[in-house]
């Protein structure tokens, strides 16, 4: 659509701008302020320069947490995107099954994060949980509380359980928008199942997939509540993701400078990665056309 150039449109954006400025810019400035200052209490601050940033970038704790975050995001993106596409392809298109599937699949999305944590905490426990008990009966020494591998598997399973539906819903929306004529043409050309997927369905899902991947990356990279409730970051530090570490640093240890510096680095990483995803995916789309 060709848009008209009109700077008065700014007035329509103003309410959003004011609101976001209040809830994002002011708090962010506070963070920037803390990150370059040091204090001995009594609200007396002095300039500390890049000291906090150096400290953060030199600390193993920060890099370890970031590594865990990256590994987690990579794993769940692989599982959720491929599983989501697969399920969306097999969804019913017509009849009573559609609303039933949609409502049941959307259900996990609307459960508060800490309740998701609680559900899986209860579900996985070896004494009272269905999953834990079943695995124990099968002779598998499963215990997410003190085995790091099991803790990771449980968290990944929980995230897949929680968020795959988002990918499914978005892909499904992309699929139902494909006109029947496309499939008829493919049929006449004798296209294989794979070719139909590769050249009709995948390009049509391209836009929604971009959104799904962006949303899932951002949210998995800032995951806090679910692992906090499920494992509390343990055993040891094996499931301490960056958010958990940050809250520990800021509110637990009240180490404002370091926490602020970490916040900024953390935020910049998400921003950079999202920007890369966004550009790569949009360029990929335009090349095809």
């Amino acid at each position, binding site marked *: 659509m060709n848009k008209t150039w009109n700077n008065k449109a700014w007035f329509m954006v103003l*309410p959003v701008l004011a609101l976001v400025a209040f809830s994002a810019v002011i708090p962010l400035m506070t963070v920037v302020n803390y990150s370059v200052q040091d204090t001995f209490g009594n609200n007396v601050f002095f300039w500390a320069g890049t000291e906090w940033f150096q400290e953060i970038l030199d600390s193993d704790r920060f890099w370890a947490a970031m590594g865990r975050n990256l590994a987690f995001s990579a794993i769940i993106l692989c599982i959720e995107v491929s599983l989501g596409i697969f399920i969306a392809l097999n969804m019913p298109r017509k009849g009573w099954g559609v609303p039933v599937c949609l409502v049941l699949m959307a259900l996990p999305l609307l459960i508060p994060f800490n309740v998701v944590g609680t559900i899986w905490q209860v579900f996985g426990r070896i004494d009272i949980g269905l999953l834990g008990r079943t695995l124990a009966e099968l002779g598998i020494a499963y215990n997410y509380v003190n085995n790091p591998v099991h803790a990771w598997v449980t968290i990944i399973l929980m995230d897949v359980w929680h968020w795959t539906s988002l990918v499914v819903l978005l892909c499904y929306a992309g699929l139902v928008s494909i006109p029947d004529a496309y499939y008829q043409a493919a049929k006449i050309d004798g296209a294989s199942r794979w070719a139909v997927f590769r050249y009709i369905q995948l390009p049509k899902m391209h836009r929604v997939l971009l959104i799904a991947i962006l949303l899932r990356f*951002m949210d998995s990279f800032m995951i806090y509540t679910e692992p906090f409730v499920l494992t509390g970051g343990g055993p040891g530090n094996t499931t301490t993701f960056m958010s958990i570490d940050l809250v520990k640093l800021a509110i637990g240890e009240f180490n404002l400078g370091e926490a602020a510096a970490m*916040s900024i680095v953390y935020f910049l990483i998400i921003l950079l990665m999202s920007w890369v995803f966004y550009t790569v995916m949009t360029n990929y789309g335009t090349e095809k056309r």
Partner: protein
Amino acid sequence: MAAGKSSTAARADGITMQRTEAAADAAGKAEAALGQTMRRRGTQSRFWWLVPTLYILFLMLPIYWLINMSFKTNTEILSTFSLWPQNPTLRNYGVIFTDPSWYSGYINSIIYVVMNTVISVSVALPAAYAFSRYRFLGDKHLFFWLLTNRMAPPAVFALPFFQLYSAFGLIDTHIAVALAHCLFNVPLAVWILEGFMSGVPKEIDETAYIDGYSFPRFFVKIFMPLIASGVGVAAFFCFMFSWVELLLARTLTTTAAKPIAATMTRTVSASGLDWGVLAAAGVLTIIPGALVIWFVRNYIAKGFALGRV
């Protein structure tokens, strides 16, 4: 004048009708039916229903376990292992509905979630219109900057929010949480609505102006009905992300506006894990979400597709 206005509405209808008619003509009814059967055979095997069924089963199992637990007594939960309650009890739900510290949590949550949804969608509507219809100085940068707020980890904002809202004396009020959640909901609402609005042809706006509609009247009378499903989807997402968020909601509240999710984490640690009540509280947090999904179920599939979200 009156005739002119009705002609705009008729034209708006006409354009959408023309499109559907064109689509119907192109395919032809018989051919469409043929295509349907072809697609069934071509792209879906006979056991296609197995995949969604297994997936839904996987989704429902943990929820079923929670519901199952909520009807058991604590002794039954801890001593015996059974797939369904042996002596079902409503005691856990009774505790929640009689204790104000429990049920007020639900009321608080619903108040701030509704406030947030209303604020987010109403400020996002004009902004999304501006982004979908006009080019203006710095529009693309502004759009990306708005999206960056969706990427901001709540953990980064917990402490500064606390200080900011303390300064304004807003701590422990519903509006504080509602405003804080605007941080990620407003950008999302703008993003979704912009997609829907771009799908509405610009000729409709122009016809309305020629027919003498003022902008607000056009927006409410003609434009809003056309993007109703978009508003539905945006409201759904705002509701969802505000309802499930805990970190900010917990940081900004102490007692008067404490959300149910925070009540759960605190009461649990205080009373030494009352599993039954915890499960019942969890089940009750699922219900509002389930209701909202049920009401927007038709918009979810149709809405996403229309808006090319």
